Structures are given as C-alpha cells and as structure tokens.
C-alpha cells in the first residue's frame, strides 16, 4: 500500500526525519511510537504533504511525495491531524460535510456510520466546532476523517484527551474501520493500546526507525516496556 524510502524532512535548517524506511501492507494497522519530539507527527505530515520532504513515498505504485496535500487526499490518504484542527466556526455537521469534500456520493452513508460511532456528534449537530470540548473535538476530527472514504487513514494521537470509555470506543472503532478494508497508520502515546491492535509497530527515535516488529513483539520488548510503558 505505502512504501517510504529514505524520507528526510525538517523545519528550516533543522532536520527532523533522517532516512526513514517504512512500508505498510494493505489492510493492516501500523503503529508508530516514539518519545516526544521523535518526529512522529512530522512523519505523518510528510506523508500527507503538509510538510515538504525528500526521499520517496510510494502509494499503490505511484510516487506521491511531490504532490500537493490536496492531491494526496484525492488518492485516499486521509490525515486526522494532531491538535484536531477542526473548523471552529462551522457547525458539527458542516465540519463533517467538509470531510466529505471529495466524496459527495457516499456522504449520507458515511454520515450514518459516523453518527453510529459517535452519537455525541449526532446530538450536537448544530454546535459550532470551536465550542466543543476537547474530547468532542477529537471525535469530530476522526469522524470528519472517516467522511473522506480513506484508503489509508493517518491518525495522529486519536486517543489524546479522550476518557477511558471513549478511548476504548475509538480503538474499537479503529479495528472496525480496518475490517472495512482501510489501512491505518496510528501515531500514539497510548502505546499499549495502539500496539495491542496493530499488526506492525515501528519505534522512532530522533528521526530514525530504531525498532520494528509485530505489535505483540514490541509490547514484549524490554526497551519498549522501559521507554514507553513505564515498566
């Protein structure tokens, strides 16, 4: 599905990602974990075209690295960004509509799915996005992402700010989404949860992949335990 080779990216003169190699199987869930500032968000931003990068990113056999962000979305790569970035002065329903910007046909069907997944959004259809609580905004952001019929869904800390109950719901939702054939790349601090549902995991440290394996392998890895699980 996605092949990344020698990906380098940075802000200004400071390099953040140095030669990332990564490949993602179609239909799998892949987690990227790493400490703060390791470059996880930058990686997602580079894939979705928000950050300029060097190297190659190949999606379904097509080089997408030098495409602008909106063209990358067209190819089914949907990014739910860190910090949610919902449209503050649009209502919940309008936010969701924006998510379906390129996918008008499936709007109604997706809307129902999203509402089923997050009933709170259905209750608050008319509320302005900006006035939703932190967690509500997170649901909205994920819901908005799903409206775009992703083939590859990039989730940047989807459980950030969610209550345990909702964290549960979101992770369940992620596995549900995968079942419908969507490939998912998650960046998480909730390392346990995300590795638990992942087929593969990568550990990233100061811009390099230092470890990879199946979710289970990583969960049992001593270094991972020490660095991320506080054990």
């Amino acid at each position, binding site marked *: 599905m996605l092949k990344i080779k020698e990906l380098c990216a940075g802000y200004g003169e400071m390099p953040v990602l140095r030669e990332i190699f990564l490949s993602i199987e179609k239909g799998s869930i892949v987690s990227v974990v790493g400490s703060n500032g390791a470059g996880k968000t930058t990686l997602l931003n580079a894939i979705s075209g928000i950050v300029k990068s060097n190297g190659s990113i190949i999606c379904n056999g097509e080089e997408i690295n030098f495409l602008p962000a909106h063209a990358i979305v067209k190819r089914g790569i949907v990014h739910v960004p860190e910090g949610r970035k919902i449209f503050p002065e649009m209502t919940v329903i309008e936010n969701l509509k924006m998510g379906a910007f390129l996918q008008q046909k499936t709007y109604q069907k997706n809307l129902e799915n999203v509402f089923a997944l997050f009933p709170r959004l259905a209750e608050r259809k008319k509320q302005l996005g900006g*006035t939703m609580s*932190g967690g509500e905004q997170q649901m909205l952001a994920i819901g908005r992402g799903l409206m775009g019929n992703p083939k590859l869904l990039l989730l940047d800390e989807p459980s950030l*700010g969610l*209550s345990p109950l909702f964290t*549960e719901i979101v*992770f369940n939702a992620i596995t549900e989404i995968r079942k419908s054939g969507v490939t998912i790349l998650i960046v998480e*601090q909730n390392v346990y*949860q995300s590795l638990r549902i992942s087929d593969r995991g990568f550990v990233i440290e100061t811009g390099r992949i230092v470890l990879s394996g199946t979710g289970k392998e990583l969960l049992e890895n001593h270094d991972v335990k020490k660095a*991320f699980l506080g054990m």
Partner: protein
Amino acid sequence: MTRKLLCIDNVSKHFGGNVAVSEVSFAVEEKQICGLIGPNGAGKTTLFNCIAGYYPVTSGDIVFNGLNINRKRPDQVCRLGMARTWQRVKPMSNMTVLENVMVGAFASTGALRKAETIARQELLVVGLENYAGKLAGSLPIGLKKKLELARVMATSPKMLLLDEICGGLNKTETGIILGIIRTLRERGVTIVFIEHDMKAVTSICDNIVVLSSGEKLAEGTPVEITANPEVIAAYLGGGSSNA
C-alpha cells in the same frame, strides 16, 4: 485539621442553552492533589475557565484562600496564587523557552536577574534545561507540556490547575510529569488535576471529583471512585484498558 484552599459552591455555567457546568460544589484542601475526571464534554475545562477567571460563572461562588474570586480577571486570579495550564498548550512561540518561563517568573519578581534564576530552576525541575535557548514554537507537544508546567510553576502559585498535562505523553513521560507534580506538592502547592489517564489519576490523587454532563457524579478517594458503579458506567467503561 487542614484548611480548605478552594471552595466551589453551587457553580453553574451556561452557554446559551448549553449547560456546561451545573450546580457543582466541592472543596480542595491545602496541599491536596485533587483529581477532576469525567467523560468528554463533562465540563471540566469549563470549570477551570470559571475558576481562573476566563468565564464569568452563571451562578454560584468560587472562594479561593478565603476570597471570593467570581468577578476577578485571569491575571488577578493568578496574582492571588492560582495558576493554570492549558489543555491545548499555548506557548509564546517566538520567544525562547527560557523567556517563556521568565514571563511566568515575573509574577513574583520585577528583577530580570531574579526572574532568570527562577526560570532556570524551573526548567531544571521539568528537565528542559537543555532547551532554554530554543524557540518555544519549535518544541514538540510533549515538551510544550513540560514548558507549560515550568511556566506556571515560575509564578510561584499556591494552587495549580492542571488541564490534561499528561495528555499526549507516553507512560514513561507521564511518570516523569507525575514525579514533578509530587515534588511540587512537597513544595506546598495544592493541585487540581484534570486527566483521563486513570492510572495517573489514581496513583497521585488524594481525592477525586467526577463530573458528568456538567454535574457532580461522585467524590471520594481513588479506591472509592474506581469501585463506584456509576463512575464505571459513565466514564471508565467495562474492561479497564489502561495498562
């Protein structure tokens, strides 16, 4: 007998028709760490905003250190010794990390040297000493959280309102922050702590208040709360998944 530092008395906050906080009362004792938990949209941040002076309350009273602070501006509240952090971090992006913390330190001193000393100390406490000269805007989220903490600590508060200070951090980093918070308590700071990471909450809080749909659902020790069926239903969910 410990003194009650903060008393929330029947506080409500409405946004138009939305009731975000509804007749909530509780008190926080001096040097206590009080957890404030609840489902998303329960009104936790709103309550913080009311306490810290960003929103006027619709009704009720907020008494801090014996003083009613209902009508105080945020800066006045901070001057009285109550500082808060932001769920969505707000670094002063074009200033350096050190300068960010110095801004906080100026709350307690007018002297540049002294402010710098305080700021460096606080940076050391949170482990950002090596980032002092970096622009705050370039820090990753986790470090920004630490910066938030250092910055409010520099105001030498009596009481801290921490809004999801561990959000976006992994377990190990959360552990570090919790460690910092413990040292703060030892310094005599009272803390109200919003967090979704139950492990963090239960490990550090003396007392927990649970909000749900704006109302107070329960209050008690961590043990009581984790066993409370209502709390489990509304908030924790079935399989406690927080390994």
